[in-house]
Structure formats: structure tokens, C-alpha cells
């Protein structure tokens, strides 16, 4: 089995936030903690693109590298999880993560941080799979139930894909080939010097002025 991965197809993401509320719903995530967010570039102008971002479950996870108490671990499928009982809330992982995945519940008191919380790929935590303890601390464990992350399964346009890396890469690749584009947002152009990198799609310029030629 390949590693578990997320990829968000920026050609399809319409910033509907289903992924965000699906996660909130499934794990009863409190106000102020945003395991998943939608990030929009070039908001309101041609070239606007959105992608859904949460923990990317990196193979070489910076959060794991910097944690002073080593509360992180990888599962066999490559999912990055952590142990809240060990976590001391120092926040270092939050600095290290390029995606802003580690979240800390806002308690309102200056300088006080609770345990770190983040996307678990719906794979729970170190507690027994599907137990009440696991739900209270980490949320649901869909992987152990034979399901995939709620965010990917509920995405309105199937932009956000989550699951076996090989399978979702295949789904994504089919789309890119069918439409002839879509991989630029992920740095394809930067890496391989394609002309399309960073350019707005052809023809998507606003036409005319709204006030009738005045």
C-alpha cells in the first residue's frame, strides 16, 4: 500500500468550505481550531485559485523533527499523528510546519496554549481505535472503520482527494490529461519551467466596463 496522501485539484476547488465543515462535524472541532482551511490566491481577479490545506502528512515531517518531547509518530500508511498526553504545547511544531497545520485552541489568556491539535487524516491517535478516549482527544478514526477522510469524501466538486497516494495520483492525472492542464499550482512550472506556471487561464479577462462605455 502506498502512503496516504491529500491532493487538492485547484482547477476544481470552488472554495465552498465543505472540507472545513466536514472536519468540524466529524471530529466536533471547537471554534478557533481550524484543522483544515481553504486558501485562495488572487481573490477576485482572473487567475483566482483556491486549494484546501491541512496537514500534508509529510514523509519528512518538520513538526516531528523539531518536537522537543517527540510526541509525533508515523503510522504504517504514512499518516503523521501525535500524542496529546505527551505534548507540552510549546508551539514549535507550528513554527516548523509550512502549511500551518498545528493548531492551538484559543483560550483567551495571553501566552497560554492548550495541546496541539491538527488534522489526523481521520486516523485518530494513539488511544485504542474507535474508543471514547480517542474520540474525545483526536476525533473519529475513519481509517480504522474502513473509510477515508471526511473532507475528501464530502468535497463538493471532488477537488480534494484523499487516500492511497497511488490511487489519488491516478485520479488526478486522468483529469490533468483530459483537460490539458491543472498541475501548475503545485509548482509544476517552477520545477519544470513550463510557460503556464503562474499565468491566468487563457481568455479569462473581464470584458467591457460596467457603466456602459462612460
Amino acid at each position: 500500500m502506498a502512503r496516504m496522501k491529500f491532493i487538492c485539484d485547484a482547477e476544481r476547488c470552488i472554495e465552498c468550505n465543505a472540507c472545513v465543515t466536514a472536519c468540524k462535524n466529524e471530529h466536533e472541532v471547537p471554534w478557533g481550531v481550524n484543522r483544515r482551511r481553504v486558501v485562495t490566491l488572487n481573490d477576485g481577479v482572473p487567475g483566482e485559485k483556491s486549494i484546501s490545506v491541512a496537514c500534508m502528512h509529510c514523509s519528512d515531517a518538520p513538526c516531528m523533527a523539531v518536537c522537543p518531547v517527540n510526541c509525533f509518530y508515523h503510522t504504517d500508511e504514512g499518516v503523521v499523528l501525535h500524542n496529546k498526553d505527551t505534548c507540552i504545547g510549546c508551539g514549535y511544531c507550528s513554527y516548523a510546519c509550512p502549511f500551518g497545520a498545528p493548531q492551538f485552541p484559543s483560550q483567551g489568556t495571553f501566552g497560554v496554549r492548550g495541546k496541539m491539535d491538527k488534522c489526523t487524516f481521520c486516523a485518530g491517535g494513539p488511544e485504542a481505535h474507535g474508543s471514547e478516549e480517542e474520540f474525545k482527544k483526536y476525533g473519529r478514526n475513519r481509517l480504522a472503520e474502513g473509510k477515508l477522510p471526511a473532507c475528501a469524501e464530502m468535497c463538493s466538486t471532488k477537488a480534494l482527494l484523499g487516500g492511497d497516494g497511488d490511487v489519488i495520483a491516478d485520479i488526478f492525472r486522468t483529469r490533468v490529461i483530459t483537460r490539458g492542464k491543472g498541475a501548475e499550482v503545485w509548482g509544476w512550472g517552477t520545477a519544470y519551467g513550463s510557460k503556464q506556471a503562474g499565468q491566468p487561464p487563457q481568455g479569462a479577462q473581464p470584458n467591457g466596463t460596467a457603466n456602459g462605455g462612460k
Partner: protein
Amino acid sequence: MLLTKKTSAAASGASSSPFVHSLRRGMAHALPTMDRRTFLRRSGVGIGAGLAASQLSLVKKAGAADAEQKAGTGKGKVEVKRTVCTHCSVGCAIDAVVENGVWVRQEPVFDSPINLGAHCAKGASVREHGHGEHRLRYPMKLVNGKYERISWDTALEEISARMLELRKESGPDSVYVVGSSKHNNEQSYLLRKFMSFWGSNNCDHQARICHSTTVAGVANTWGYGAMTNSYNDMQNAKAALYIGSNAAEAHPVSMLHLLHAKETGCKVMVVDPRFTRTAAKADKYIRIRSGTDVAFLFGVLYHIFKNGWEDKNYINARVYGMDDVKADVMAKWTPDKVQDVCGVDEATVYEVAKTMAENRPSTLVWCMGQTQHSIGNAMVRASCIVQLALGNIGVSGGGANIFRGHDNVQGATDVGPNPDSLPGYYGLAEGSWRHYAKVWDVDYEWIKSRYASPAMMTKSGITVSRWIDGVLENNDVIDQDSNLRAVIFWGHAPNSQTRGLEMKRAMDKLDLLVVIDPYPSATAAMAAMPGKSEDLNPKRAVYLLPAATQFETSGSCTASNRSLQWREKVIEPLWESRSDHMIMYQLAQKLGFGNELCKNYKMQKVKGMDEPVIEDILREINRSNWTIGYTGQSPERLKAHMRLMHAFDVKTLRAKGSVVDKETGYDIAGDYFGLPWPCFGTPELKHPGSPNLYDTSKHVMDGGGNFRANFGVERNGVNLLAEDGSHSKGADIPTGYPEFDHVLMKKLGWWDELTDAEKAAAEGKNWKTDLSGGIIRVVMKNHGCHPFGNAKARAVVWNFPDPIPQHREPIYGTRPDLVAKYPSHDDMKTFWRLPTLYKSLQQKNVDDKLYEKFPIILTSGRLVEYEGGGDETRSNPWLAELQQESFVEINPKAAAERGITNGSRCWVVTPTGARLNVQALVTERVAPDTAFMPFHFAGRWQGKDLLAYYPEGAAPIVRGEAVNTATTYGYDSVTMMQETKTTICNIEKA
């Protein structure tokens, strides 16, 4: 190099990309462009504080949550109920997981052919309805400015007593009931019946302010006023033109189908005053001035005619009046005039026309952007005419794909509380009343006696868009005996209608104001907040009754594509809420017609009280709504469809083969999913439903059809029926023909194919009033003909104010020069019982130079996180967190001129004198002359927070200014639709 090797000095000196920093949670460093969500979230941190305190961390959960934890373990009694989202009209299915009666989880339904498991933010969070922390829990009464809890018995007793008192003093028309597009089909239908027995046509629902112009305009063009194809069918389109639709936010899951189509080659064009999220996905975006759709569409049509791209055969055979339209268009909509009015240059309009013409079948999509104007009826017809010219109607991949709003606005429109019709669009003439008297098993004379007079029985009621004038206007100019003295908001918010300042005054003057809703809604706060002392009626009584949501009852709802889906009951009504049909029954009993209302239904016990069995109500609909084919969708067929979703094809919506439902033994073979209406005849006829309307390539028993013969046989010597050779596949009559009645049946010699029982019922009747369904059976099954006839669509609708759609400037606009060239209609003295202003008000606005004081066009629309008036969705913390502030989108140039910066507070002021305090979102989405506000907010009033005026504990989490507090007068010339998409304002730095 691995991050974990800390030995190398190079690692520490490595520069990190600025991009990395900018993705930092909270976005402390502003990017060159700030996206809407981020900018708002920063400003709303304080709002969540009260909420956060009770939900501090995932490690500890307090209070009520613990009880749920026990239910969430999966070790108790777990059931899965299949239901449908309660928000928009796409109709996404949901599997609700219930343990020990508590709604603990929700799973996507991949099997659904409509949404394939997908949701938007609202659908993905519906489970919160099962928490409902901010719901209205008990009946309440407004006492000395505060809402106090009362018992149901007291509430029903007092309300009914007051209603009967008002009836005696001022007649039944003094009570206005605003019904709901969120009621399921059965409840909507029951409400129309309720109003009929109360004795007034003063009822309406959200369709008025949403797609009423569509229904009128489209039905008058070719027969039925509904989406002709479906979201799924859009996958077959080669080009798609969205004009006045922001589907990415209003119908997000529809984009699944569109974006798939786009990937496989469909060309997408979006026309909108704003660069919306839908426009961001378009191949081509065209910005137009709000309110100028007719000019644009006819500019497109000009090029179609000029280049001979129209489908001449199709027009000859199936369209009436296109020559007249062509003459009008070629003269009036030359490229220079088009650009003058809507601002789009010739090259762009030409390209749109070329794309639509060269990539057929092409589809045209519209939503509020076209409908909410004083000429909405003309705009939608212009869209229809373009599609008729291209031969795109009745074709898979083509169509006029009208995206409806609420989850059951289609159903409520079809069978619900309309002021001008009975369920199924049966009019208010005596024939219709007699038809229903029979179905309802009551004496026609008795119904007649309930009305103030026979005249009032056949007269269309006041529309919800004008109820305030029904209260405030001079009595002598209202076309009914008394002013409105009582209003019941039954599942309807107030802040989605215009003229909020006047609405407050009207609310204060009422004798009785009742809200029946799962949430108090903005009405509760608006009623309780202090207004002008001279307005307040000292005898006013305000009540709030808790209704249950659609998850606390079962029933059917109709999606935009006309498919009906059955919802299973997920949980019992929370707290003291009761289902709407139970409330209708109980109120009817108090008012004296409870038996008549529910005599045809069995009762079941819910929380120990009688509730009409929902399936029985649907069966009554099946027995009566022949006109639009709501007769084949029996509860059994619908439930089987919901259980066998996986067996329906996603592209065609047809059952993949013969599959038998285990529970009922029903075989879905041949059915289209949800039996999209019209599903003609009795359930036994097993009509499969009609996926694409007017499709002559199919047999009528296969879902095929043709245009309706509703407008006569001939006009000015021109044949209105279809030409020879134009008919649905396999029809025995290969020419045009009128609708069927007993006379025609006898003439054709088909009469004897009816059984004796059918003959008895059909004698003297037509296909709409034949309660046996025999005429329909014989006509369709035996002869492949369409019961409503086979005629031409009308490009010229002679009974409309403008038979050929004309552009007319909005009542409040910024172009006085164009008002002179394209003025509005003449005023109407009595229109839906009220005097209605057009030209005189428009001219006064120009004379007063309002365009100088208010030089910015104000338009409003939807956000993906919220729905409708918004109190319901703003009470869901998972949604509320995403949009915490009401805002106005203002162009950087306009903002700079006013000293307004992004994120700062500002005042939006309009000619009504209202001032809205909102946050400024400076963005290039809108042009320098346009501003946009979402309409979902309420709970703040001209700078003041109305939290104190809500019942304790039942206020929405997020409150903001309602744009409609400040919107202006302006109504459609056929349906009284409000002109919300274009008014004027100015914006000042606060």
C-alpha cells in the same frame, strides 16, 4: 537534505521562502490580495470568545456534550436514515447515523446520482441541526419587550382567538400567511389547503422573491415554468452560458457536473456584474452592468440572426413569433446600442454568440441575477428566446437550466401556498375550486362561504414582497376590504425582502404577529426592538412557535431538476418543537376546520399527539395534481428510488436495468431517478418521469414531450400548434394538436378505450380534471401523445406588458440618460391588490438627482456558507466561524476616493435613509461603480446589535446588518418580484 539533520550549518542559514511565511495560520502578513475569509476571520476573533469558552479544547468536553458522547460510541442502537439536505435545491442525499435517538454522525451517499456524495459547507454540517443549541425551544410571547416562555396550549388558544376576532372584525383577508419553501411537498400543499379553508388567498412563499419571474416568463413561453433539463444533463453540454448565476456559491455541487463537463470540452462563459467564484472557473468572463440582461442577450441574438446561426427548421416547426422578435432585435440591439446599455463591446458579444452557436447543444443557466428585477419577466424570456433560436430547448445538453433556491422551493411553487393558484398551478377560477372541492371531499359551497365574497375567492392575493404595503397603504387603494392586520411568518425570514425600514413600521402596526420556525428568525428581533412610538399598536401580540426541521419529520421534496426525493425522519422533534403539519392541524382545529383539513389522512402519534400521516398527504397530491404530473410519484416509488440510488445512471438519471426493491417489490426498470415531474398518470401507469422537458426525440412514455398547447390554437391567422411532422417520437398524431378533453377523445374515437369507471370520471372533463387519470392513460400509453397538446413555444407573449422583451432601466439607477431612452413601465393602479409604482417613481428619482448622491450600484447575493435569511445557518458554529461579519465589496478606486481601507468600517447609505454599518472588503471583484453585499445577515440594525431582542439563548452566533434594511422600492411588472439586484447607494468611511 532531511530537515532532521541539525548538524549542518547550511541548514540554519537557509532562507525560507516568503510564500512559507504567508501561509502562516492567521495570515498576519497581508498578501497583495486578501481573500474574503481571511480578512473576515481576523476581525471576528472576539465573537467566538463566548463560544470558545464552552468548547475550550478537544481534551475536555463539558456538560451536554457528555451525554452525546455516550450516544456516540456506536455500541447502542444504531440506525441509518437517508435524508436530503435542507438548504439548496441541488438535493444532496445524506446518510444520518442515529444512535439511541441522537444524531451522532453523517456519512456521504456516494450512490446518489445527483450529488455522488458531494456536499458544500452547509450540507457537510447539517448534523448540527441535531444539536440545535440556538433553536427556538418553546412557544414564546413578547411581554414588555422580552420573550417569555408560554405553553403550546396557551399559544394556540390565544393565537386562534385573535385570528377569529380579526376575522369577525375585518374578514379573513386581514390575515397574511407567509408560507415556506422549506416545507416539504406535503406541508406546502397542506398550507394551501389550510388557507383555502381559512378563506383567503393571502399566502405566498419564497418563490415570489426568487424565481417567480422565471415561472411566469418561462411557463408563458412554452408551458411549464421549471428547469428544463438537469444538473446531471449539463455534462452533455458543449457550451454553457451562465448569466446571473453564481453557482459556485449558490449551488456548489452543481459545479461538480459543470466542471466535469468543462474538463471534457464544454466551454464555459459567465456573465455577471461581479467577478464571482463561478467566473473564476469560466473560460470567458464578461462583466455587465446590473439590470441590462435584455440588452446583452438580444445583442447575442443579433449576431445569431445576422450570421444565420439560428435553427430555422426548429423555429418553423416549434416556435411562434420569432420573425417579430427578429425584426425588433435587428433594429433595436445593434452593437453600439448594446454597448451603450450593458457596457459590453461588439467583439465580446459576437464571441459569446459564436461559441453558443458553434458548440451545440449549448445550455443557458440563470438564477437571481436575471429574476430579481422590475423587468425580470422580460429577462428570463429573452434567455428563453435565445435558446429557442438556437434550437436548444428539448435537447439533452441544451435547455434553460434554471437553478432554484431553497431545498423545496420547486415543490412549494408546484403544490404550495401561492396567492394566485391552487396546488398544481390550477388557477382560482370556479372550475379549479370544484376540482379541489372534490379531491378534498368538501362541499364547494362551503369553501365559498369561507371567503369574504366569491370575488375574493377568485382574486389573486397580496404577494409576500408587498405585505408591508398591505399593512401601511391607505385602505381605499387596496383591493380588499381591510388592510392586513395579522401576519404569520411560517418558515420565512423577513430580511430577504426589501424595504426593511418600512417593514419594521408594518410589524409594529400589526394586531398579531406570529413566527412559526425552528429558529426565532430576524422577525423576533425586529418585532421586539423599539421603533417609532407612533407606529406601535398597543394591542399587538407577538408569538414565536417552535417548528421542527425537515430532519424531524419525513416527507418528499422536489429538487431543481424536478426530481422528488423522500426524506426519512432522522430524530424526534427537539425540545418542544412540533412538525409543521402537526401545527397546521392543531391550529385548524382551534379555528374550526381541523376535520375538513385532515379528513383524508390517517393520524399517527408523535410525542403523544396526533400528526397527519405524511404519506397520506402525498397520496392526496397524487390524486389531484394532474396538470404537472405529480400523480405518478407515490410514496412507494419514491422510497424505492431512495433505497436503490446506486442503480441509476449518473449521466441520464435512468435506472440501469431491472432492479427490484426488497421492501415493496417495486421494480425501478425504466424509471428516471426521483420520477422528475411531469410523471403523468396514476402510479400504476408507471410513467418514468421526464428528465428533459419538451424532448421530441423520445416517446412520451419514455420521458419525451413537446411544447404545451396552452395559449390557443391560432393567433392572427397564424397556427399556434406545432407544424406537421413535429411531434414526440412515436406519437399517433404527427401534427400539432390541442390539449385533450372528453370531446377530443370522442372525436378521435379513443373514448371507448377507457374503462367504465374511467369513463364515469372523465365524462365532461379534460385531462386535468379527470380524477381517474384515464384520459392520460389512453392518450399516452395507447397513442403516444401528450395530454397537454403539441404546440409552438411563444417568442411573443401577447398577454405580458412587453410582448417582446424590452430593456427598461431599473427604478433606482445611475444612468439618467438611459432612463430617458428606456423608461420603466406605466404605474399600475391595482396590481396584486395594491397600487404599484414604476415610471413615476423612476422619474422622481432622476428629477431628485439621486444618481449624484448615490452613485454606486448596490447589488446583493449569496455566500456559500449561509442560506436565505440566514438566522438558521448563522446559528451553526461550524458555518458561522467562516463568515463572521457582514460586509460590502467595494472596488479599490471607489474605496480610495472615499478614504476607505480594506477591513475598516463604513456606512452604506441608500435613498431610503437607512444606514448600514458594515466592514469594507476592498476588492476588484466589483467594478468601480458597483458594490455588493451578501443578504444572509440580520441581527444588527443600523449600527446596533439586536442580541438583546432575541429570546434568551436563541440568537444566532453571528449577527450583522441586513442589506435589505436599506433596499428600495421596485417590483416586476408581472409577478411583483422585488428588484433586489440593482439599487443605488453611497458608501462613507465610518
